């Protein structure tokens, strides 16, 4: 009889416990859901604030010229698509030409950056060699100089090489790891990978090149993806170097072409410029969305083990 009594007690207790646990879980779920809802609300508000200027840009690209600065209302009084259609052909070359040019320059530059900067970063991060700190400091120094003062000596240098009015000054430096930002970025990421991997590989007889190719690179996909995104966006939007080095309008890149729209003294075409600015963002956004997934996938297979 005693067992059945304790059994019953036990059953009641367990039931009690189960109920409590269930309630706790419900409460927790509710909290989490509320938390998530709050988070979403917050993010949505922030998103709206973040996006408002972009909406303004988009709206302005549909407005007739005299409304862009005159009225504060976001909504255009009439939708003018001709800013887009006219704008595409407004300049001496159609924007097709400019987009192709930008694609060439950007594509080459991104490849160049990824390859040369990862080489240099691997050396700085993983290999001990004489002069490492010295060269690292030199590299950092190139980051700190304001571009405008080396502009002219650099121009003269490229002029002497006969590279002016070609894409060479824009692309070649990228294959020579000229952008220290990416070297530094990759160094920071490489340093986080466990050294045991390197050591194990070395014991197996792998050369540094093999280690770089087979171990470091695959594990650094987040860094590579980030570098690719930044590289693409910055090169796509760079206009100072193209301004200085490109003379022939047929070779202009998109940001440079946008600058042909505005003239302080004469007639500007703001509506068309805005329309073209909006369009110039499209490839970048597409690339960004595509590459985002790469980062996510790379992390999912993160070889921290």
């Amino acid at each position: 009889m005693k067992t059945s009594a304790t059994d019953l007690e036990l059953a009641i207790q367990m039931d009690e416990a189960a109920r409590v646990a269930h309630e706790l879980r419900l409460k927790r779920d509710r909290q989490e859901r509320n938390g998530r809802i709050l988070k979403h609300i917050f993010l949505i508000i922030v998103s709206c604030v973040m996006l408002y200027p972009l909406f303004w840009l988009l709206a302005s690209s549909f407005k007739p010229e005299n409304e862009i600065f005159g009225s504060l209302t976001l909504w255009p009084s009439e939708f003018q698509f001709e800013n887009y259609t006219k704008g595409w052909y407004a300049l001496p070359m159609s924007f097709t030409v400019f987009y192709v040019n930008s694609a060439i320059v950007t594509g080459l530059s991104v490849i160049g950056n990824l390859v040369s900067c990862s080489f240099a970063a691997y050396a700085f991060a993983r290999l001990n060699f004489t002069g490492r700190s010295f060269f690292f400091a030199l590299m950092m120094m190139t980051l700190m100089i304001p571009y405008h003062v080396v502009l002219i000596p650099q121009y003269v240098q490229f002029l002497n090489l006969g590279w002016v009015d070609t894409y060479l000054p824009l692309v070649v430096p990228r294959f020579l790891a000229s952008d220290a930002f990416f070297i530094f970025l990759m160094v920071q990421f490489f340093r986080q990978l466990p050294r045991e991997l390197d050591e194990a590989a070395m014991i197996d007889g792998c050369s540094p090149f093999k280690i770089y190719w087979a171990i470091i690179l695959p594990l650094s996909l987040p860094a590579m993806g980030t570098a690719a995104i930044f590289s693409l966006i910055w090169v796509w939007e760079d206009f100072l170097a193209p301004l200085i080095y490109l003379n022939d309008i047929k070779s202009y890149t998109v940001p440079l072409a946008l600058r042909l729209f505005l003239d302080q003294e004469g007639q500007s075409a703001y509506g068309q410029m805005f329309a073209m600015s909006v369009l110039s963002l499209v490839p970048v956004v597409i690339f960004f969305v595509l590459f985002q997934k790469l980062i996510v996938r790379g992390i999912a297979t993160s070889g921290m083990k």
Partner: protein
Amino acid sequence: MTKLTRRAVLSTIGAAAAASALPATPLFAADRTIRHYWWGNPERDKRTFAVIDTFQKKNAGIKVSGETIGWGDYWTKMATQTAGRNMADLVQMDYRFLFEYVHRGALKPLDEFVGKSLMIADFDKGPLDGGKVDGKLYALNIGSNSQVMVHNTRAFKEAGIDADLINWTWDDFGKVCEKITAKSGGKMKGSDDLSLMIETFESWVRQNGREFYGPEGKVTATAEDVAGWWQMWADLRKAGVVRDKNKTVILDPPIAESGIAVGDTAMSHYWSNQMVGIQAVAKDKIGAAMVPHKAGGKPGQFIKPSMFLSLSRDAKDTEAAIAYMNAWVNDPEITGILGLERGIPCSPKVRAALTPKLTEVEKLSVDYFTAIQSKVGPLPLPAPKGAGEVRDAFMRIGTDVVLGKAEVAEAAGMFIEDAQAIVERAQ
């Protein structure tokens, strides 16, 4: 990228051709190439490339490479090319920078070509002389303009303004501002606040009988001139008949942000060749008025060359370049394409040929130009080195006055001192 190698080959050919001792005979039977660099906008670029096409068709052996960018970046690139001794053969020049470049030896004089390959004998002398520095012609005037007070004709009609817009004085101006502001219930003010516009201030100084820069390139405007100018605008501000001060302190705004374009004032100060651009963004029809005169004073305005074409020191094939320049200002087909886009042409023949084809706004600018001929003064002396910086100082110190943070008299004195120091340092 055949582009890269083709360009390299072309430039080598060009260099080889130039290096040959016989300027007229190219080393190969290939094209001679000249480069033309100008600042532009979509409309101007379209016309200029059309001109290049036309010229190339008529001159089979010469290729013209057209290089252009907007005003904001034009001078940066120009400076870079100058430093690298890689300027285009023909560059578009502005009055503001002409003297800087001439004084530093970046441009070649044109006198040796005048009368032989550059036919400008019957051109208006005054506007042509604008391109002369130290007696030599360094820049060919490719369009003239003058200062203009662009006004909103609708607002003027509604307020019943009937002032003589060519001969009016600053007092008349003040009254007009009051009327406009009153009629619109304060929504539209009479005029933009011109405190910070040194170009208009220079007219004021001229009306007082002085030039801003004297013969030695020193600052000859006085603190009283400055104080008088800033005080007048301060009074207008107090009466509430000019544009809101917060808009005034935005410097060098684009045309589309001016009072007349946005619609919050009825008058803005510009150059006459900008009227086409202004009408494009203004909702109402615009009209042209002179800068108000000082009662009993000297004329303040002058006919200014709006832009020039110059031969750079790096030009190699000068013969081809001058041929191009000559066609630019004389060839009827080419001048027909260019129209009034860069300003009023110097050549009476060209002007006559253009008259039948003018648009309404263009006719307005030509009529205005004709009407002011007898009311303007002589072209002022060239600005010395440092003029750009003086302009910046004027706007900077004036901003404090506009915002009420500085007293007029004190600021005026400080500005004149600063200006003199700047000009001295720049020598």
